Every structure is written in structure tokens, then in C-alpha cells.
């Protein structure tokens, strides 16, 4: 899918999508319809045939759009869950390291803060551009190195350290999943089918024997709805991009907590 759509305001994108479809529908009704109808013979029963084909086609196309909308929403929801899990395991990790003795506690806090700051201030804006942020890897490695240097001196510290390492792995896994979902989207081929189907729908409408005004109204209505559906799917397609996207909000309280530590 094109990337520029995420850089324009939502209302502009919605208006653009619906407007493009309405324009296509109206242009067809004005210029293509007078040519197409005579080609098909202009029989009085043509409306019934077109209506029959359109209803069959509409079912399949509706199913396609519906499934895509559900898939896009589920993808969004899944990624939202991953981000929530990542943020909560980061908060748990932050709690765990607070129990370490000095100076390890401060060192680990600084490294975790450095990482969290990067996620909020640098990684998220990059994700919103569709770029997988890479700077977090180094910061996570630095944190892990420091964590692994800690030598527990008591049984309580051993338990605490083991739990922190476990929590670190949980966090790391959630982080990897988030990064993998940055580039996840509906394949380009699918978009071709969606657009081809929309065009076929509108072309079929042109074949109805109606007044031009009815064509402009009914065709425009259908075109506007198709545009709106496609806008919805496109906007939800990438969970980190566009107006309907996941923000760094779950990480922000952790960062402000770490900043004031």
C-alpha cells in the first residue's frame, strides 16, 4: 500500500478516497454509460440481469472487504495487545531492578531509562514512518550486559536476580513482536483485487437503465461507501501509522517515573 496516505490528515485521506470513487462513478455515468449500454443490446430485461450479477458480485466483494476490515482490525488489536504486554513487562522489570543493591540499582535504572527514553522519543516516531527502529537493540544489550554482571550475594538476591532475568526475557520477546509488526500490512496484491472489485462494482452500476440523475445519486452513494470502506481498511492496515494508530502512551508513565527516580 502506498505510504503517503499516512502522512496526510485523516479527514483529507477519507475525503480523497471517497471523492476519487464518486468522481470515477460520475465520470463513468456521464461518459462511459451511453457507450456501454448499446453494446449490451439495450434489452428491457438488462436491468434484471445486471441486478442479478451485481448482487452475486456484491456478496463476494462484500465478503472480501468485510474479511479485510476484520483482519485489519484484528491486526491492530493484536499489536495493541503486544504493546500493552511490552509496556507492562517493562514496568515489571523497572520494579524488579528497584530491589537491587546500590550501585547496581542506579546503573540498571539509568540503562533502562536510556532505553525507555529511546522508545518514546525516537523509536516511536520512526515506527510512525514505517521504519523499524534499530537503536533499541544496543540499549537492550547494554542493559543485559550490566544485569549479567551482577553477582548475587544472598539467597534472596539469587531469587530476585532470577526473576529479573525471566522478566527481561518476557520483555525482550514482546519487544521483538512489536518490531516485527511495524512492517506488517495487507499484501499489495490484495489491494489490487480490492480496487479491481470496486471498479467492477461501479462499472456494473453504469449498466442500469436509469436517468442520469438517479445514476449520479445511487452510483455516487455506492462509490462513497466503497471509498469509506477502503479508507477504513487502509487506515487500520498498519497499526503504527496514520490517525488510527498506536501511540507510545503506555510507555510514557514508565519514562516519567524513571526520569524522576
Amino acid at each position, binding site marked *: 500500500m*502506498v505510504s503517503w496516505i499516512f502522512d496526510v490528515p485523516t479527514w483529507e485521506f477519507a475525503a480523497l478516497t471517497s471523492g476519487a470513487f464518486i468522481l470515477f462513478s460520475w465520470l463513468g455515468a456521464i461518459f462511459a454509460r451511453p457507450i456501454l449500454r448499446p453494446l449490451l443490446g439495450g434489452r428491457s430485461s438488462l436491468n434484471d440481469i445486471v441486478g442479478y450479477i451485481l448482487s452475486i458480485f456484491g456478496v463476494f466483494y462484500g465478503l472480501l472487504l468485510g474479511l479485510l476490515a476484520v483482519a485489519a482490525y484484528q491486526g491492530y488489536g493484536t499489536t495493541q495487545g503486544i504493546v500493552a504486554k511490552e509496556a507492562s513487562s517493562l514496568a515489571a522489570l523497572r520494579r524488579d531492578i528497584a530491589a537491587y543493591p546500590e550501585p547496581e540499582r542506579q546503573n540498571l535504572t539509568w540503562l533502562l531509562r536510556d532505553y525507555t527514553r529511546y522508545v518514546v522519543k525516537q523509536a516511536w516516531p520512526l515506527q510512525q514512518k514505517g521504519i523499524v527502529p534499530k537503536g533499541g537493540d*544496543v540499549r537492550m544489550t547494554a542493559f543485559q550486559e550490566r544485569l549479567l554482571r551482577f553477582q548475587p550475594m544472598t539467597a534472596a538476591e539469587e531469587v530476585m536476580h532470577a526473576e529479573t532475568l525471566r522478566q527481561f526475557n518476557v520483555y525482550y520477546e514482546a519487544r521483538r513482536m512489536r518490531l516485527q509488526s511495524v512492517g506488517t500490512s495487507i499484501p499489495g496484491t490484495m489491494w489490487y483485487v480490492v480496487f479491481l472489485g470496486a471498479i467492477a462494482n461501479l462499472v456494473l452500476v453504469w449498466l442500469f437503465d436509469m436517468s442520469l440523475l438517479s445514476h449520479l445519486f445511487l452510483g455516487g452513494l455506492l462509490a462513497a461507501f466503497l471509498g469509506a470502506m477502503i479508507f477504513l481498511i487502509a487506515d487500520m492496515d498498519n497499526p503504527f501509522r496514520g490517525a488510527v494508530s498506536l501511540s507510545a502512551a503506555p510507555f510514557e508513565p514508565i519514562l516519567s517515573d524513571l526520569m524522576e527516580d
Partner: protein
Amino acid sequence: MVRRPRLSRTVLAVAAVCAALLSGCDGRLLEKLFTPPPGPTPIRIGLLHSQTGTMAISETGLRDAEELALLEIDAAGGLLGHPVEAVIEDGRSRSADIFPRRARKLLSEDKVFALFGGWTSDSRKAMAPIIAEAKSLLFYAVQYEGNECAEGVIYTGSTPNQQILPALDWFLGDAGGRRRRFYLIGSDYVYPRTANYVARKYLASKGVEVVGEAYVPLGSHDFRRPIAELRGTNPDVVLSTINGDSNVDFYAELAKQGVGPDELPVVATSIGENEIRSLLPSQVAGQWVLANYFQSIDTPANRAFVDAFRSEFGLDRVTDDPMESAYVAVKLWKLGVERAGTTDPQTVLAALSKGASIEGPGGTVRFDPRTRHLAKKFRLGLVREDRQIAVVHESPEPIEPDPYPAFAFPGWRCDWTQGPPVAGAPIDLSAGSTPGR
């Protein structure tokens, strides 16, 4: 017969409309139509420090200080009407292979206009030929051993005559207790070995004895034997050029063996507030630190720097000498770019060479076009209980840099205004050394 050509035209017309829409779906047509005109291209600079490995404890702070300077530049409207963007790479504490590889990548792939990086002299020496080949600039922000005037390198840290030698003078004098038995310990690489060579030669010129000299591998964590050997020579002061997180283990082991600053003062060249935070006050309070800058300097410029750093990176973060030098380095580069009116490295260097000074957090520093180092003040500090460093002594004026002090490097000279550096007599760094027991 009559309708066929009309049908073809219609099919073609519909196909054309479909193709137009589908090409829009692919994005090429619509992207061209609707993509807003690009904003000013960011000016890219490279930050290459070790963010992992043994040097991370020291170098991460430099990256943060450089980022702070860049944030301030962007907040003030950018540079020549462009935002400034940092491309950050991790040297992974591997001077020989990762540093030169990443430096080459930053210059050739990321097309950065200047590089800010390194801590160890090994990393600087590994990057310098690449900088010279690319005719770019490397801003190196850490105190170092001298004995170098590499093409394209701007040294914003201090040379031995701005840090080690004034400290030796102080400890040889009444204020420093008229010490006469010096022990030199350092990490085993070019900086400590060369710095100790300079210190040894200087002390010899004063008729003072170096009772022992020892080196531990960079990244070493076991100091039981080195400290036992050190104590066996009965020194009255230790000059430490240990680098990285080995410092933590060195001071911890000193404390563990009950060697306090009253019994045996340690004077360190490569430790600051950033490393001291990893130690307990009981392990390090009362020890000595050599630098040009300490966080405790009470001036409006420094308070503003410390406040800005803390509000960006955390209220409990500290600033130290190399971080201040790194911050100053970015500001110096900015000054050069503004004066040159371009980011071209050689033009920037020429602009700076006409004379430049910066009001940094540690005071005024002046760019010396002969050596491409900075003239800066020397400061001697004592570690306090709160792990901050109190200034005990400072030079009244900034000290001119001298990468080749004549007593240590006879015949060597660096004056870029006259031409490339002149080589003198060959130097044997081990000459006159006394191995520790």
C-alpha cells in the same frame, strides 16, 4: 461490422481508466501528485561511541552530551536552515575492528559531514586514517596521551601538559605533600603506556623516582594481585590511567584491601563523575581526579548545562569532563559550519583555523589552529562523599595544548599552519620504566 471498432475504443477507454486507478493503487502516480514537497534536508553527523562492552560505562555519556548539543541546535532553528540529525553507531568497545568499520560506514553510506567518536586512543588511531582518506573531520573528546597530530582530527580533550603534568607539579609541591615515590598503573593500551612514558620522563627531569609501573588488560576486573604488588613497592602516590569499568573493580579492591586515600592517594586521569556513580562513597571518597571540568563548577554556564542534561536524560544523571568536551565539540563544529556557511569538512576546518573560541560549561576554550587542540584550564579534584568532585586547584588561565612536550618527544613538532607534523627521534615508550613487583 460497424460496432466492432467502437467496442475496441470503449474497452480501451475502460481499461485506461482502470489502469489509471490501479497505478494509483500502487502509489506511483498518486504519490507524485499528493506527496508534499520535502522539507530541508537534515545535516547528518555521526556519533560513534561504545554503547556496549567494557567502555560503555564511560562512552555512553559522551553520546548523550552530543545528543543534548544537537537538540539545542535544532531547538534554536537548526544549522544553515537545516535540522541536524545524528546517525548513532555502537563501537562495542572493539577498537581494532568495529570502530574503523563503523566509521567507514558512517562516512561512505550515511554520508555524515563530521564524526564525533571514540574514547580509547586505539579507537581514535583506528579511525584517523579513514578520516584522512575521506577528507572528513573527527572530533575526539577525551583526554589523551599526546604524541599525535592526525590529519582531520580535532582534539577537544586535554593533552598531558594540560592534565597530568600540572597534577604532578602539584603533588611534588608543598600543597600536594611533596610526594617523591610515584607508582604508575594503567590499562594495557596506547594511552596509559604513552601517558606514563610522559609522566616518567617528566618526573625523571625533576629527579623523582617512579617506584613501579603496571598494566592490566583493558576490561580487567581482578585487581587483587596488581594492588598487592603496588603496595609492595611502598609508593606515596599512585597515578592511575585505568580506563572503563575496570576502574570500578580497581577502587573496590583498594577499599577491600583497606587502602584508603590517607594511606595511599590515587590520582586518576580517566575517571569522572560518570564512573564514580558505580562505586560506593566508602570506596572512592577522598581520592583524586585530574580533569578540565567537574560537574561541581559553580558558574551559570555550567548550571545551565547540568540542568539541561538532567531534564533531558534524568534528574540523577551526572556530567563529567569528557562529556563536557563532547558537548563543546559539537558546539565548536556548529560554530565552524556557521562561519564557513557550508558543511564541507575542509571548509569548516579552515573557518575554525582562523581562530575560534567557545564559552563552554567548564569555561572558555580556544581552538588552537596549530595543533587543532583546545586551550583549556587544568583542574584537580577530590571525590566527595556524595560522589561529586570538589575542585581543589585550578590553573589561573587556560593552558595551551602541547601534544609533543620536548622532554618526552625531542624533535617532534605539530603546526598545521606551517604544514604536516614533523617527526623527531624515534620514541621507545618502555625506556626508563620500572616494572611493578
